[in-house]
């Protein structure tokens, strides 16, 4: 029954026009970034490398597919949560708003399985969106710009990664980015269990992300103790794969925090949905 309903949920997701907004928006944004970088990429990068040129000499093709993919990821990972929440925030509350929740909850499937199947379908959607992001940013930028070594500017300075040493970093980076987006998806599904309209959970999810991100970026001692527990602190952990050496301990910690968030949010959703009287 769980798999059957997961299939149902996935059919519902792919049948809604809004589910393709994310894919469309990503395609347009990445195309614009690639176009802009093709036109003016060399100039933009030269601004960054100018301060190092007194001590370092840059040879070869700096503006390559790897750099463009990295820039795209950097720019979009902040905005993709909205595209995810747009779909997943509607999964339970959308049924309440449409009235179909009555039909669904009066079928011989447990409410726990309903939540699980929605979570699984939301996870599949998030995965597909992440894969699409990967295809567009990596494959298309490689086709347009070709390959090459990757120069990454970190707070510690420049990190230069060999061409052969990059692809697996992107692979793992996308996995962690997926986990971060899945946390956002789970948060919006959780809000969705509390709401009876589609907009509320989407707005609430974005509000939480914005508030947590602001808390995370504020250099105030009083917030230091909670920052490690905010999922937004760990949303950019994918970037750690582009450091040398890779801080695996910090990445593991981020993965654990994100997984704990996902598990807790799913449990809260199950608890709430099981307790809920369906009166709509």
């Amino acid at each position, binding site marked *: 029954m769980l798999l*059957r309903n997961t*299939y*149902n949920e996935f059919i519902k997701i792919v*049948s*809604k*026009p809004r589910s393709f907004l994310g894919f469309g928006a990503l395609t347009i944004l990445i195309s614009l970034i690639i176009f802009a970088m093709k036109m003016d990429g060399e100039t933009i990068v030269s601004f960054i490398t100018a301060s190092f040129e007194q001590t370092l000499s840059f040879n070869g093709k700096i503006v390559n597919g790897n750099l463009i993919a990295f820039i795209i990821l950097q720019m979009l990972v902040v905005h993709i949560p909205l595209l995810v929440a747009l779909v997943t925030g509607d999964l339970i509350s959308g049924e309440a708003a*449409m009235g179909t929740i*009555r039909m669904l909850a*009066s079928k011989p499937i447990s409410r726990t399985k309903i939540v699980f199947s929605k979570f699984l379908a939301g996870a599949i959607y998030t995965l597909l969106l992440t894969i699409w992001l990967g295809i567009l940013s990596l494959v298309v930028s490689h086709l347009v710009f070709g390959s090459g070594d990757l120069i990454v500017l970190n707070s510690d300075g420049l990190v230069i990664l060999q061409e052969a040493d990059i692809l697996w970093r992107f692979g793992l980076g996308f996995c962690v980015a997926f986990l971060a987006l899945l946390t956002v998806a789970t948060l919006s599904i959780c809000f969705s269990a509390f709401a009876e309209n589609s907009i509320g959970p989407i707005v609430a999810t974005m509000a939480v992300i914005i508030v947590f991100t602001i808390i995370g970026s504020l250099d105030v001692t009083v917030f230091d103790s909670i920052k490690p527990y905010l999922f937004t602190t760990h949303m950019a952990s994918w970037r750690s794969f582009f450091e040398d050496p890779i801080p695996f301990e910090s990445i593991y910690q981020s993965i654990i925090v994100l997984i704990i968030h996902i598990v807790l949010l799913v449990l809260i959703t199950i608890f709430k949905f099981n307790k809920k009287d369906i009166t709509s």
Partner: protein
Amino acid sequence: MENQSVLHVKNLSKKFGSFEAVKDVSFSVNKGDVFGFLGPNGAGKSTTIRCLLSLIKPNSGKIELFGKSLATDRAEILQNIGSIIEKPDFYKYLSAQKNLEIFARISGATVTQREIAEMLDFVGLGNRAKDRVKGFSHGMKQRLGIAQTLLHKPDLIVLDEPTTGLDPQGIIEIRNLILRLKAEQNKTILLSSHQLSEIELIANRMVIINQGCSIVEGNVQELLNNEETVVRVEIDSSDKAIELINSNLQISTVDRISATIFEVVMVKSRVPELSKLLVESGLQIQAIEPKRKLEDYFIKIIQS
């Protein structure tokens, strides 16, 4: 087997905060019943029905369906129930066929594509199977709701206000559909409706609830027959007929309306006695019509 209880509700209560929506409601639905579930707005009908379908958790009381407790055998019980609650809502962005496929998949039964097509034909939507529900009229959605209800061949069908918002034609279609289900498939039907005339036409048993409490339960005709009713008689001479009635039948209230029309207040079960008397007297009878319908009975019960 006809009196085998399909649904048994005992002392069901549900509170929303301090508001007691349902108080100690009890009733039983037997196999093969078309059971009317009546009550004014806010009486607790929908809350009770939602409790039966596990949409709302009651605070206390017992719900047994097919001899099993809803609290412990929920999935098994719900496999055997088809329902429309208030209005049938569907995924508007999907076609009628896709909607039925979605609900069939989680109905607990194996439903083939052919069965879905046959069901759409049964409710008269065979030619609209591929159309999105978005463009369907209320009546079409209602018929699709019936199709969804019957798809997995349940034994008990729960219809909460199935004729709300329908035009007269739609009401007749739903009524005929219910009668067909009863006649051809011997389904047990729990029918909540504001259309009391509909209940009177198709239900054999009923319960009336008001302010969250069940007031009366029983066989529809027996309940109505035991009540005093106004019988309107059209005849060639009211005066002669009234004289006959006063001298032969112990009936307290006889009102002369016109030279050819009079009304008698009597229990419905005595109407044959009255008609026999008038026929045997040689008077020309145009009509004998018991005026009291379920509406009158309902209002009397609610007001009392």
